[in-house]
């Protein structure tokens, strides 16, 4: 090793954490946004330090549009997009994307359908061409629909043995049935068996349209080139004849009204897995749309409750009681009123104590103002950790999608730190009062029902289902 005469010689002070150095500001990556004549928004973020590009085409065909008795139609339709175009078969499309060093994936969540592709930058035009091909000229081959259907039915069987899938399915039903949010994205076997090719085509024609959609691009390219390619490949795209003509000047698609049902008290749902080695546990409540002004305060509230390692739930259930490997909470971002969900897996005999802790913490957020130090920790964590995912192209893409989906202004993330800091203790207590109503709580425990029921009867009315009833 080289001699280092300039190295500090003084002993290390270990009496407390060292002070920070001078801070360099973080800036959200620059991007440009335009709109094609057919209504499609185009976001282009040139992030060019590696020869990579990620593309995503978001279309307003999320599972929130699933018709009654046809849960799973949106995700199935989206998946079928890259299963064949008018020019190419499913395997030809996959091979073409993979030759570009990339992939081509299509899927849907609650809010939107998306076709995504990651590729080497030199293949940008070919990649965008493929994306446009599956978006604008899908064939929905009957044989591929059958393949997808069979694979999806098998997937439901697999999920039926998986504690996390059972917990999610039971919780969403307990919180939201009979609204569309009470389903799962994958649907139920009876509905999946009944879906016809015509239904897929009609759904695609109605919802997978350029108006209300957005093309997002992040990576090594010049924005002008990207806008030019987008116009070449997607500019002529018109809504399919089956759909009502889109109003390009007002691209907001009318959305279903999702209002979670009111309940008189907490509901406890047990999913009976008599031989489970531990219990998968969820405690949830419905909240608000990502577009609602209260969402940001709930986001900070979630951080205090269970959004980071040092949040209340993890410190109590893991570090104090040792009954779990981890306890977390998350706030969904959705067009409709998404849930706040506490998730953990705990030793079966500790489930009563764990639910007690969760319910107590939810109540404490309503009754007592969050202290200044704890609030400062939440602010600093959310603000300080915000840039990390943006190191990856996919992280930037994710944030652009948030802007596009929820109608947020282009400069939204430039002022995000101030927006988070503005949420004070009073604001937290106000949203806790509005949304953490104990009567709206649903508890789901997947494990041995005979050992769980006695621990949970004190919290509300207990019902017991089999895995087969939860994932049908």
């Amino acid at each position, binding site marked *: 090793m080289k001699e280092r005469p300039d190295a500090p010689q003084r002993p290390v002070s270990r009496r407390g954490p060292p002070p920070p150095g001078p801070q360099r500001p973080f800036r959200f990556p620059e991007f440009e946004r335009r709109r094609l004549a057919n209504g499609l928004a185009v976001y282009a973020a040139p992030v060019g330090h590696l020869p*990579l590009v990620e593309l995503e085409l978001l279309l307003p065909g999320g599972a929130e549009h699933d018709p009654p008795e046809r849960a799973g139609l949106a995700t199935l339709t989206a998946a079928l997009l890259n299963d064949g175009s008018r020019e190419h078969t499913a*395997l030809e499309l996959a091979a073409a994307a993979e030759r570009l*060093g990339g992939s081509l994936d299509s899927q849907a969540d609650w809010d939107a359908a998306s076709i995504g592709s990651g590729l080497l930058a030199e293949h940008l035009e070919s990649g965008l061409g493929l994306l446009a091909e599956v978006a604008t000229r899908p064939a929905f081959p009957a044989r591929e629909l059958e393949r997808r259907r069979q694979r999806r039915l098998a997937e439901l069987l697999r999920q039926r043995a998986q504690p996390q899938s059972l917990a999610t399915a039971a919780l969403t039903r307990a919180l939201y049935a009979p609204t569309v949010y009470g389903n799962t994205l994958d649907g139920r076997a009876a509905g999946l068996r009944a879906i016809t090719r015509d239904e897929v085509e009609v759904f695609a024609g109605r919802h997978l349209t350029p108006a209300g959609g957005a093309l997002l691009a992040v990576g090594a390219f010049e924005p002008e080139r990207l806008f030019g390619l987008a116009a070449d490949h997607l500019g002529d795209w018109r809504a399919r004849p089956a759909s009502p003509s889109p109003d390009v000047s007002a691209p907001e698609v009318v959305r279903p009204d999702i209002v979670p049902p009111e309940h008189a008290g907490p509901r406890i749902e047990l999913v009976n897995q008599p031989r489970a080695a*531990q219990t998968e546990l969820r405690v949830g409540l419905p909240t608000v749309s990502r577009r609602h002004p209260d969402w940001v305060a709930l986001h900070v509230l979630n951080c205090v409750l269970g959004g980071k390692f040092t949040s209340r739930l993890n410190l109590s259930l893991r570090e104090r009681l040792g009954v779990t*490997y981890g306890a977390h909470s998350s706030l969904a971002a959705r067009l409709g009123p998404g849930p706040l969900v506490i998730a953990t897996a705990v030793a079966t005999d500790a489930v009563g104590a764990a639910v007690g802790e969760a319910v107590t913490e939810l109540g404490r957020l309503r009754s007592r103002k969050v202290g200044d130090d704890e609030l400062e920790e939440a602010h600093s964590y959310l603000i300080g950790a915000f840039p990390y995912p943006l*190191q990856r192209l996919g992280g930037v893409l994710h944030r652009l999608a948030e802007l596009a989906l929820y109608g947020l202004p282009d400069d939204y993330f430039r002022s995000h730190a101030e927006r988070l800091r503005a949420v004070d203790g009073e604001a937290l207590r106000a949203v806790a009062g509005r949304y953490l109503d104990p009567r709206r709580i649903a508890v789901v425990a997947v494990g041995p029902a005979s050992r769980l029921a006695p621990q949970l009867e004190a919290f509300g009315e207990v019902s017991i289902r089999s895995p087969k009833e939860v994932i049908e």
Partner: protein
Amino acid sequence: MSLASTGAGGASASGLAGAPAGRPAAPALPIESHALPNGLRVVLQPDRRQPLVAINLWYHVGSRNEVPGRTGLAHLFEHMLFQGSQHVGTNDHFRYLQQVGGVANGSTWFDRTNYFETLPSHHLDLGLWLESDRMGYLLPALDHDKLETQRQVVLNERRQRIDNQPYGRAFERLHELLYPPGHPYSWPVIGYEPDIAGATLDEVVEFFRTHYVPANAVLTLAGDFEPRQALGRVEHYFGEVAAGTAPQAPRQRPVWPSAERREVLPDRVELARVYLGFTVPAVGDRRCDAAELLAIVLGDGRSSPLYRDLVHDRELAQEVWAAVLPMEIQSTFLLVATARPGVEPDRLEEALRGHLATASRGELAADELERARNRMVAAHLGALQSLDRRADLLSRATTFFDDPERLNRELERYLGLGAGEPAAVATDFLRPDRGVVVHVVPAVGGGRTAG
């Protein structure tokens, strides 16, 4: 040179010398390496595009350093390293980091244990202070209460990841069969429940004294710092940690199975699953690289032969994948396929074997190799996007090969593999008489019970 200069203006980065024409390459990362007098190796990878810094520490100790009867000690110990040290309170490690917007974690594997955090770069000192405190001053802070709590946390982790997961025991069982009793890879990283339950504080203390010395560690910083200044800060915090002696690596030669071993494992699953396991040469051996390329050729992506044939065309499998776990004594090669309802595991196994036979006959098409190479390039570039992954890869190259620059030659190495080399790996190592087969099948009457 900084990374920013290679991509200015959004144009794609310049090519790497030695890469085949027409294939894009990763820009070479600027890397410095140093060693402190106490033996700590330090790797610096400056990148000032964002005000972030990743700190990554590899200790060259993993479950391979355990003994039968005390499995899981390396991982249990990893948990203890987050319970504070002499100058850091019990829950304060995470608290100090998260207070300034840092994210942190650690992980244990067969050959190594790593600890890492990403921070806003003006808090670099905080991360170095915390890591050096638990390297130099852990023992005064260890006590029975902390051990008991973390023991329960780890027992719950084992239930969550293994005992209560469908197929959760399969990989553990596969390694038990693939490596002979006493071989350091024959037991699971997380350990067996009675061993975790029986670990004592004395054993934890002894484990620290033996393995957590500077000469057995690599510290990598990647991100927003000036290298000379950062090295000064590293010397400041870590220079006073007592040197100690680097422990001996376990003396274990590779063991090659001489016969096929099979097992049927009833489990609480609805769909059967087939695992084929083989051993291939150690990480760093060219044949290990070839095995990784072969795994990508066979099973990565929807146009791979395994997906095309088993999932799409014949609809025998719900999903299929191939993977290599590169390790220091020898490596594991895995083929895994989940059966569709009504498909017998035997039939699925036969289909998988058919593809291995094709591979060993050297009948991989040129375009299949080309596809795999392109995917490898994209995956490598993808991994370089974030500072924490980059730092981890640099710690790895330094721990295993004492050569951080190896990361800059990674693609060259893979792209230099000839078309015949994956086939040779299949012929020499992925043979029916040298493998392990585990069929996970739905249990009649409910399957394995609580552990």
